[in-house]
């Protein structure tokens, strides 16, 4: 039965020792250990979350890169198309211009030809006139003897000229 009755001495020493031990351990053992464990837990959680964030950022960047690439691709095709258009336009313009120029040159040439033809015609007419006069002069000189015949001849000559 005495085992169920607490002894004063042991109770006293246990109280003293336990409480002192508790406060000492609290300050020098549990606090540092618990803070260390807590800090480690936090640092692990932080690293995991930061890794997760990095991952998300990476995938974000990847999609951004893809978007940029797509954009660049589109731009390139657009630029190519534009360049082609410009090229076509320039060629067409050049062709047009060349045509115009050519037709102008042709027209000018034609005009010149016409002028020169006219000039040549005039020249020929003049020459013909002087030839006629010369012939007439010769005829007239010759006609002094055979007047009737010569007149016929002149007439035919004159007709011939007119026909020309």
């Amino acid at each position, binding site marked *: 039965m005495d085992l169920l009755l607490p002894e004063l001495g042991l109770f006293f*020493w246990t109280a003293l020792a336990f*409480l002192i031990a*508790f406060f000492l351990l609290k300050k020098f053992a549990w606090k540092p*250990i*618990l803070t260390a464990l807590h800090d480690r837990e936090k640092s692990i959680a932080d690293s995991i979350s930061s890794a997760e964030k990095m991952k998300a950022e990476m995938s974000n960047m990847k999609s951004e890169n893809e978007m940029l690439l797509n954009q660049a691709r589109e731009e390139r095709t657009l630029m190519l198309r534009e360049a082609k258009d410009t090229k076509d336009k320039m060629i067409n313009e050049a062709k047009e211009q060349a045509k115009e120029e050519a037709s102008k040159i042709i027209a000018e040439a034609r005009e010149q030809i016409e002028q020169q033809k006219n000039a040549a015609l005039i020249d020929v007419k003049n020459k013909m006139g002087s030839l006629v006069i010369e012939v007439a002069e010769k005829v007239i000189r010759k006609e002094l003897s055979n007047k009737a015949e010569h007149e016929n001849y002149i007439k035919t000559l004159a007709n011939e000229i007119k026909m020309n």
Partner: protein
Amino acid sequence: MIFTPKIPVKALLTLLFVIFGFAFSGFAQETENHPVTAEGRDPHAEGEKKLNVKEVIFGHIRDAHDWHLFSVGDFHASLPLPVILYSPTNGLSVFMSSKFHHGHEPYNGYKMVDEHDIAADPTLVKGKIMSLDGSKFYDFSITKNVVSMLISLLLLWFLLTGSAKKYKNNGINKAPTGWQNALEPVIGFVQDNVAKPYLGKQYLKYMPLLLTFFFFIWINNLLGLLPGGANLTGNIAVTLLLTLVFFVVMLANSTKYFWGHMLNPPGIPMGIKFILVPIEILSNLLIKPAALAIRLFANIFAGHTIILSLMCMIFIFGAMSKVAGFGVSLFSVAFSVFMFFLELLVAAIQAFIFTNLAAVFIGQAIEEHHHEEHGAHH
């Protein structure tokens, strides 16, 4: 919740063992009957030297004024411990327990209680100190239990501060080594399975207390299992003190909600309140803490008793016949090895249960109103 199944289990085991043991011994005696009579041994002559089993067992379980190591015949190897007595009439007297010469001689007006004193006054307990003139005095001696406790605290101190230093020196991102490695899962276990579930957000505030409870009980349970070790956690004074510490912490942190719920439980008819409130008060303020103290005491006490009983069996049967003694010794040793393993487990389990229940009860006391589901009623 209040009555742990530990005690019935142990009682059952003892019962089983006793029944089995007796059956075995009956068998052993029957076959070895002839040699015994042939030797012509008189059981009454043996009876003079017969060991007092009760004395042996309780002598080991009780606290003592010297640390007894072993005895050979009349030679007793024991460490004397300081005796500190305070008497209101005779003042303070401090001396070593060796002055009593193992209880054979009185000293300074005091003596150790022996068989003759008990015969005169059965309330006296052998090995305790009594004053010769019968005056009242207080015993503050450094007993075996106190020394054992101081050793355990020193061990704890070096273990724990050593680990704490490692955390400081190695930083938090280095893997733990040595004892630190062994302690960390235990601390983590107390934190994650005891403190956090029951104490909620405030768990960190109570962690040092819970950890101190756990490690103090555990290490003393283990030291008590060593041969010649003291039975500290199986002593009611120690478990009572631990419970008192818990009780003070619980009351100091208890909330209005806890008291309101206990003294005036809402939503209950007036008539039932008259029955319920006293039960609640008794349950929260007496039964729960008392159960905490008694559970630990009884479990460790029972474990020590069983192992010692098993050992005594050998000598009881040995006194009947040597062969029976040897026969039983095989069984006793095997069974006490099993019990030692069980006690190793119990040492940790009881430390856990004490810590766990302390956390549960504190958790109930510090509960705030916004928790609707509460486990205050049993």
